[in-house]
């Protein structure tokens, strides 16, 4: 396996045969070729190695949910070996004891052609050292016998920096047993004998690190691993001797698992909000199916239905040898009394919404809500199911119309302008479709360019000519001043595109009877909307904003 590093192809890893012949990880490929003429090389991508590392870790969750990647020597480093740390407390009896678990793991790894070494000890660091530096490929240290097992190992088994290992080597301390035999105080002093202050400081940290590693290995200092997956509140797993593959058998397994998990959740007075079904394939791949609910639930039927909807896209390969169910998020269940008359109260939440969001995505189902804003694109918000269900219902209908009428009163308080526009102080209807982006129209210059508080006579939009027959408006809508960079002056067309802009909106109808919502903005910063007579100072810019009909 080779990787490219700084324009040089170097050997990333070599198989035992190649190593025996002289090819070493880290060598340039040309050097390795010179040593081993028959060398066959494969170029690999570090990202792919990383992915494979992760995938293997996910596969390992078949033994325990707490699996962490070992950061000490990542496989993406040249010559690095992929390491995993598993916390198997309480899990090993399922595999015939600790020995059985290790043997099973290593055998399965060998079956895929991966030479694996595994060790089990009281602490992660001790197991790490045993696996990397121990004699046997599979080592299981019984509880409480960590120290005797560590004694004969070289100091590198403590995962120490190279400088420390060198320093210890100079002192003749080559085995862990040698260090343990020393007095802790003496060890610290031995290192601080150096002369300069800087060196002394370095030495202190070195000795501190050494002592800390020793304590971690012997369990005198707590050592935590960072598992890939958050620990589930409730979980169950089922292993099979013969792989299963049919949809019916998978669903039956899920039913069995739910029978184990749901009573636990129920006993805690909780309901499932988020669950995950993990399917372990024989070839080592794992597939997770997430189930989300907007209300805590304990109904096996709902879980099963959501699951079976997602099994269409399921690829079980050569079959599954384990299936797990874990509850990631559980919430207190509000018990409600079943009413005698079904359908008596139309509830806002229904499992149908769960089914829609699980398949289409959480953002796909939304409820439109109005906000107190004049700018039409700011005036409404689409709330996801979760938010919509959390907000209480209010009587909103009519509010927005009243508001826009109030806005008219304020903005067009000048009676002259109001008379010119022929405004009745009444709520203006809004278009049923608001275009995602305002779409500019072309205005035929041969026609008199209308300006002021009037729409053009005709315009060209979407490759069609529109001659206007009727119009009403304008309605001046301003973005909220507290959202604008220049405050209450508002923003006009000269502002950057992304900002909301004050516009005059017109409701127009063309000769075919289609009604549009058009808007006008002016580019002049001094008199953005023209003078009293409605003559625009700059050239007005017209857009189509929405469709009424």
């Amino acid at each position, binding site marked *: 396996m080779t990787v490219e590093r700084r324009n040089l192809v170097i050997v990333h890893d070599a198989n035992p045969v190649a190593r025996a012949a002289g090819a070493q990880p880290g060598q340039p490929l040309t050097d390795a070729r010179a040593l081993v003429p028959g060398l066959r090389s494969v170029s690999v991508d570090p990202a792919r190695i990383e992915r494979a590392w992760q995938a293997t870790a996910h596969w390992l969750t078949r033994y325990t949910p707490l699996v962490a990647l070992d950061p000490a020597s990542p496989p993406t480093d040249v010559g690095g070996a992929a390491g995993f740390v598993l916390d198997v407390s309480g899990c090993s009896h399922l595999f015939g004891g600790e020995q059985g678990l290790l043997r099973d793991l290593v055998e399965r790894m060998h079956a895929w052609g991966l030479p694996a070494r595994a060790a089990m000890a009281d602490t992660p660091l001790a197991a790490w050292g045993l696996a990397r530096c121990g004699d046997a490929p599979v080592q299981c240290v019984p509880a409480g016998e960590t120290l005797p097992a560590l004694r004969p190992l070289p100091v590198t088994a403590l995962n120490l920096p190279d400088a420390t290992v060198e320093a210890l080597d100079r002192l003749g301390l080559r085995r862990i047993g040698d260090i343990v035999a020393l007095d802790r105080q003496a060890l610290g002093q031995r290192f601080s004998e150096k002369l300069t202050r800087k060196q002394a400081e370095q030495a202190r940290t070195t000795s501190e690190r050494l002592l800390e590693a020793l304590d971690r290995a012997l369990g005198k200092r707590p050592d935590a691993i960072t598992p890939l997956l958050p620990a589930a509140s409730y979980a169950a797993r089922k292993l099979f001797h013969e792989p299963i593959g049919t949809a019916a058998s998978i669903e039956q397994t899920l039913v069995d698992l739910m029978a184990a998990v749901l009573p636990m959740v129920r006993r805690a007075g909780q309901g499932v909000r988020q669950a995950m079904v993990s399917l372990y394939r024989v070839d080592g791949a794992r597939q997770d199916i997430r189930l989300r609910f907007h209300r805590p639930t304990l109904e096996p039927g709902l879980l099963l239905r959501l699951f079976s909807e997602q099994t269409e896209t399921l690829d079980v390969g050569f079959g599954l040898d384990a299936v797990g169910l874990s509850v990631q998020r559980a919430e207190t269940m509000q018990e409600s009394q079943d009413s005698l008359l079904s359908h008596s109260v139309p509830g806002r939440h229904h499992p149908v919404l769960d089914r829609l969001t699980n398949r289409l995505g959480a953002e796909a189902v939304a409820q*439109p809500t109005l906000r107190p804003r004049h700018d039409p694109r700011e005036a409404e918000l689409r709330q996801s199911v979760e938010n919509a269900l959390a907000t209480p219902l209010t009587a909103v209908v009519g509010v927005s119309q009243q508001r826009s009428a109030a806005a008219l009163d304020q903005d067009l308080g000048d009676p002259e302008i109001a008379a010119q526009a022929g405004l009745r102080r009444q709520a203006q209807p*809004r278009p049923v*479709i608001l275009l995602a982006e305002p779409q500019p129209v072309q205005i035929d210059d041969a026609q008199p360019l209308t300006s002021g508080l009037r729409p053009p006579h005709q315009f060209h939009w979407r490759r069609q000519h529109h001659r206007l027959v009727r119009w*009403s408006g304008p309605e001046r809508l301003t973005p909220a001043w507290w959202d604008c960079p220049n405050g209450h002056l508002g923003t006009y067309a000269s502002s950057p595109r992304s900002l909301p802009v004050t516009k005059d909106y017109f409701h127009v109808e063309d*000769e075919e009877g*289609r009604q549009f919502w058009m808007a006008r903005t002016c580019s002049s910063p001094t008199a953005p909307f023209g003078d009293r007579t409605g003559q625009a100072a700059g050239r007005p810019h017209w857009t189509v904003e929405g469709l009424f*009909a």
Partner: protein
Amino acid sequence: MSTPPSGAPDHTLESLRALIAQVERRPAPKLSRPVAEQQDHQRALPFEVADIDAALQGGMEYDVLQEVLPARTEWDDGLTTAFSASLLARRQQEDQRLNPGQNQPAPLFWIAQHDTAGAGLSAQGLVSLGLDPQALWLVNVRNDAEALWAFEEVLDHPDALGVVCEVCHLELAQSHRLNLKAAHTAREDRGRLLLALRRHKGARRPQANPTAAATRWRLASIPPHLLAPNGRGKGRAGTPELRRPARDAAALSLGPQDAGAAIHPSLQEASADFAAGGPAPSAHALTPPPAHHPMRQVRWRAEMFRQRGGSPASWLLEWSYETHRFRRLSELCAVGSATPE
């Protein structure tokens, strides 16, 4: 040629219809229903326009697919959206009339695709049309298959009042499947208005292929010059300008399939009335500037080109932004001078 005895064919037809209804799990075929039962508004949404409700035998039937098609595909997004939203608003009104004092509105569903016009549905616009958006769930899907899947799922909601589903392509079998599911999940006390809103997706346009919808509507805009006589239009109606009404009527006819043929007599009357004295659309030089006039309604030429167990018909129809009611435009026409302007 052996003609069966009179009376016998009626009986055969009735029993066959009953059999079909049984197979389709639907209530009772319309034609054999007694007149008194046809007034049962629980099973249909009345337009509250006498002619239309009579032609539909009570209104838009609940729990069976209804289909809305645009006449000019790319340009009628607004028209078809407004029509569907108006019908949903009508459905909400009916619900409030029948179940007053509900503390929360019953849910409505609008299934839109990310590239169809419904993605831009505006809550403010819905409020203008009289629909309470708090009850509305917008479901955003990626394609026709997902839209139909979502439609079927939503039918499981026991409290839904109405569903609008935007699809481009709808097969006969798919629509039949939806009808079966709807009949299966129907509730006695609450009817659902089910609309399939046919949309174009980019260049792909909906075809008017046969579907199992109970009624199929094609909506077009009404050129305003047909509706706004120049004040003295009535006086000119008698002058021998016979060509123009005919042409305008033809202009109103939609699509190549039914050019001229599907024009309902009432529409021909209406357009004849409106067109008399209206400005000629080709006279560009003489075009008056657009008039400043508030537009307080959405108008459609609504052509019901297929009705199961009934005959097709078409109407000029409007929905008011103020009263939130349907109105037939020929009534306006009869009033004459009462038309706006």
